[in-house]
């Protein structure tokens, strides 16, 4: 009896291995471990998030202090560069690396804020349209068509400039103009899930619409919404940089990558690093979600 029990106990994990597949979570971790693109993307996101949160601790200098005797020091890989300013200084003698790190705060903050706002708007519209169907769905699709027709970058530029440039304006305007992809994805998935058996089951035990939407459907959209979120965040960050580059976004002396490129533009023929360095940072961030597109 004892030996049989032992044998069963020894067999059990093996059998479990054979029969039970990995849990969804384990499968996800396993896939993430083997996926170079995911690791690269995750590394960049975490690095940038940490840098922007701990900017005052990480930045070697104050990004706003001007030192006119130390203007346009080239980066350290250049012969005239020095370790005091690893990425050199700009035309006002401000430390470039520090400005880049503080700029990450603006980019990440605006990107996260606007992407969240767009997410709330888009997911709400998509959920209701997909769940209700019929006229409400048609109305939502019409709204989507109108939003797609608007030249969003141009409209964002005009609105931000007319209202008055500030980080809050940027977040609101960019958020309100970037909800369409959340809506499309949420609507399609909601329509699919709506007719699944577990939703009927929930309804048969007396769940009302609100409960079905929030407890049965919404949690199952989470993965896809996260993917859209990361893509949209990059789009918004690039739009913020574009607006700041054109002088209608973040205002000087605040450090923003787009603004840094704009400020460096006048000197770029002589000191290309003023333009290349923040651009590489921006492109690096844009790469992150693009990599995640092929999981």
């Amino acid at each position, binding site marked *: 009896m004892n030996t049989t029990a032992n044998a069963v106990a020894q067999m059990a994990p093996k059998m479990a291995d054979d029969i039970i597949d990995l849990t969804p979570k384990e499968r996800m971790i396993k896939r993430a471990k083997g996926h170079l693109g995911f690791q690269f993307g995750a590394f960049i996101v975490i690095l940038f998030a940490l840098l922007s949160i701990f900017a005052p601790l990480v930045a070697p200098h104050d990004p706003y202090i001007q030192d006119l005797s130390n203007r346009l020091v080239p980066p350290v890989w250049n012969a005239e560069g020095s370790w005091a300013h690893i990425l050199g200084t700009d035309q006002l003698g401000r430390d470039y690396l520090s400005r880049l790190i503080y700029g990450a705060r603006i980019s990440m903050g605006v990107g996260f804020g606007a992407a969240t706002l767009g997410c709330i708007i888009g997911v709400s519209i998509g959920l209701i349209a997909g769940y209700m169907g019929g006229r409400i769905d048609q109305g939502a699709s019409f709204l989507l068509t109108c939003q797609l027709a608007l030249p969003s970058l*141009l409209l964002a530029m005009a609105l931000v400039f007319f209202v008055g440039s500030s980080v809050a304006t940027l977040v609101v305007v960019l958020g309100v103009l970037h909800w369409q992809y959340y809506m499309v994805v949420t609507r399609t998935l909601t329509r699919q899930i709506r007719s699944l058996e577990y939703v009927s089951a929930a309804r048969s035990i007396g769940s009302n619409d609100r409960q079905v939407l929030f407890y049965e459907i919404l949690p199952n959209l989470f993965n896809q919404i996260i993917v859209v979120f990361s893509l949209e965040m990059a789009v918004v960050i690039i739009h913020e940089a574009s607006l700041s580059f054109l002088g209608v976004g973040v205002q000087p002396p605040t450090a923003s990558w787009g603004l840094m490129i704009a400020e460096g533009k006048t000197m770029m023929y002589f000191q290309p690093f003023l333009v290349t360095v923040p651009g590489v940072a921006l492109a690096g961030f844009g790469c992150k979600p693009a990599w995640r597109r092929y999981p």
Partner: protein
Amino acid sequence: MLKFILKRLALGLAVAFTVSLATFLLLNLAADPAAMVAGEDATQDAIEQIRVQFGFDRPLYVRFFEWLGNLMTGDFGDSYYWKQPVFDLLIDRAPVTLTLAAGALTVTVVVGLTLGVLAALKPNGWLDRFALSFGTAAQAIPNFWLGLILIILLGVMFPILPVSGDTSWKHFVLPCLVLGTSSVPQVLRLTRTGMIEVLGSDYIRTARAKGFRPRQILFRHALRNALLPVVSVITIQIGYKLGGSVITETVFALNGLGRLAYESILGADVPTVQMLVFFFALIFIVLSILGDILNAWLDPRMRVE
């Protein structure tokens, strides 16, 4: 087919109306137009006087229908900043932007389709990986930065192309390249996915079995079907190109609609800005209707709603 076209046109009209309303409301609520005309250090009295003089004291809906009514009769309003009719400004600047959009579209279609087809021939091969990396990079790199880098490279370090102005065809090479690259990823991915799907289908196998040459199969049988979804994406991309011209034209100092929009925004010129936003939206609407009709014509299955 006729019913389909009429339906699309009606929808387009409704969208155009809504968009014009949204544009008008957003831009007129974003700031006090009287204060913007008056300038930064105008007195309150001066602002009030301008408000009455320009009719800004009337309710929004009255002004909106007046604007819309004038639009119908071809009166696009007068620019406060440029001191001339908005219509003349548009006519003046449009050719540059249309040239830019056409050039950029050529770049997008040629690069996107070629890379997409090549990538689909051997999924996961080195060409496929190259194409996908290229797409990723094109998506990640901001338009204006790519423009500046190309200016440094091809305008300054190896000066073979002019980098600002719009007087010869050479001036358009770099802007078209920059604006075109930004849309390559979408076309590339769609072509690739479509081709991979079509190449794996039964009728291609049949065609192979019948002994058609690979090239014939690729271009005659596969590409035609794979291109259907690409058509609608391309029409949408033309719309984005017009919107994106703001940045490209500013970077390369082209005197087109995008730069006009930029300068009008900085000049707080609401009539011009709202007309440009509406104009770009209108072009987008017309293009998407054309795209739908084209698709319905190419593929009878699309005609059934």
